[in-house]
């Protein structure tokens, strides 16, 4: 059978169109099959954009904020590295006023504000610079609830995100973290990390999926019950006008860290 060029091009063109169309069709079908296999836990806590309010009037001394940090670090198997301060790993930590809110220093400001232990965590920014610089999308913003997540499986340890984060919320595992986790206190339900990955607060995505509040919020509630006050950490949906967080924001004066950078943090401070 002989074929001229015109016929050959016709057949080649037609078959490539069919091929591309067929592949897309098959992939679409496959995705729909997979999607029907998995679902969200109906008990999960959901929001459009999670946010936190830190009421500093409730955090006067170490005994007020340390339970929150301890709860967080215990639940997530965060290593307690003490031999080198540069190798410290922290998801939640106290900070002085001048470090938390630089550019707002005032030598005549009352002493108590200078030395207040401002409780810091990842700000879960609306426009997170860490996500923009991550070359592997190991850190990404969840579209469903605005959590800035870490996918430890993908992290290559380049530390761009640490340079990108203006809040110092990220820690690098310079060494194997396992020896620095107290085995008697480790949480068998959560993984550890390995040497060479970056970690940070994930707003307890694994607890939210089970319908539990973040560990620090729960700890703050326990402290409040003990002291007979209201909790110092308030957690809720920033996009829901009826949420507790929004109620506080509409009544009290709150500040955020470095708002001039345009990252739009989701953690608010009442001083």
């Amino acid at each position, binding site marked *: 059978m002989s074929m001229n060029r015109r016929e050959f091009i016709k057949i080649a063109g037609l078959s490539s169109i069919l091929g591309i169309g067929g592949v897309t069709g098959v992939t679409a079908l496959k995705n729909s099959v997979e999607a029907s*296999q998995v*679902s969200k836990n109906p008990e999960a806590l959901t929001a459009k954009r999670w946010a936190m309010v830190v009421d500093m009037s409730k955090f006067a001394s170490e005994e007020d904020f340390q339970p929150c940090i301890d709860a967080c670090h215990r639940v997530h198997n965060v290593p307690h590295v003490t031999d080198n301060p540069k190798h410290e790993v922290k998801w939640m930590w106290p900070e002085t006023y001048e470090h938390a809110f630089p550019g707002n220093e005032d030598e005549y400001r009352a002493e108590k504000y200078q030395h207040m232990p401002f409780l810091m965590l990842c700000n879960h920014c609306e426009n997170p610079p860490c996500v923009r610089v991550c070359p592997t999308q190991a850190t990404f913003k*969840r579209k*469903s609830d605005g959590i800035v997540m870490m996918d430890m*499986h993908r992290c290559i340890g380049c530390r761009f995100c640490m340079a990108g984060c203006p809040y110092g919320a990220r820690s690098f595992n310079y060494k194997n973290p396992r020896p620095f986790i107290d085995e008697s206190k*480790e949480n*068998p*339900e959560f*993984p550890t990390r390995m040497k060479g990955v970056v970690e940070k607060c994930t707003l307890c995505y694994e607890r939210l999926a089970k319908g539990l509040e973040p560990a620090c919020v729960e700890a703050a509630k326990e402290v409040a019950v003990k002291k007979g006050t209201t909790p110092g950490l308030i957690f809720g949906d920033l996009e829901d006008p009826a949420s507790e967080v929004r109620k506080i924001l509409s009544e009290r004066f709150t500040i955020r860290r470095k708002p001039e950078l345009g990252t739009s943090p989701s953690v608010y401070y009442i001083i």
Partner: protein
Amino acid sequence: MYNGGKILLGLIIFISLVTAPFWLSGKQATAKPDPKIDTPEILKLPESDRQCVESKAYMKKEHMKMLNEWRDWVVRDGVTVYTSTTGKQYTMSLQNTCMKCHSNKKNFCDECHNYAAVSPYCWTCHLEPKEKGL
């Protein structure tokens, strides 16, 4: 043939060296992997419930792909519940679902992985179940 004896001797030495691994290992083939599924957690279940997330054949062949999919669904998409082909629902978690039954990593995971000389890096982060007497 010039130097026939030497050439033959050389050939014999060469062939015996090349085939040495086969002779030296003898006929004792490496024991076939035999992953154990008799953990106390599994034995506690009633006979009818002793069924993995999917069929044994599927799990044998596809568990690695399934774990990768589970990982992406949970970490990246935020969905945590898996509905198996039998309609039963499971929480997608290596540490909290798989290893709760298969609490014998040494005699289950490692058994085949060592045989096949693969070393998946699950356990650099994920905590393996505490096995008694190890």
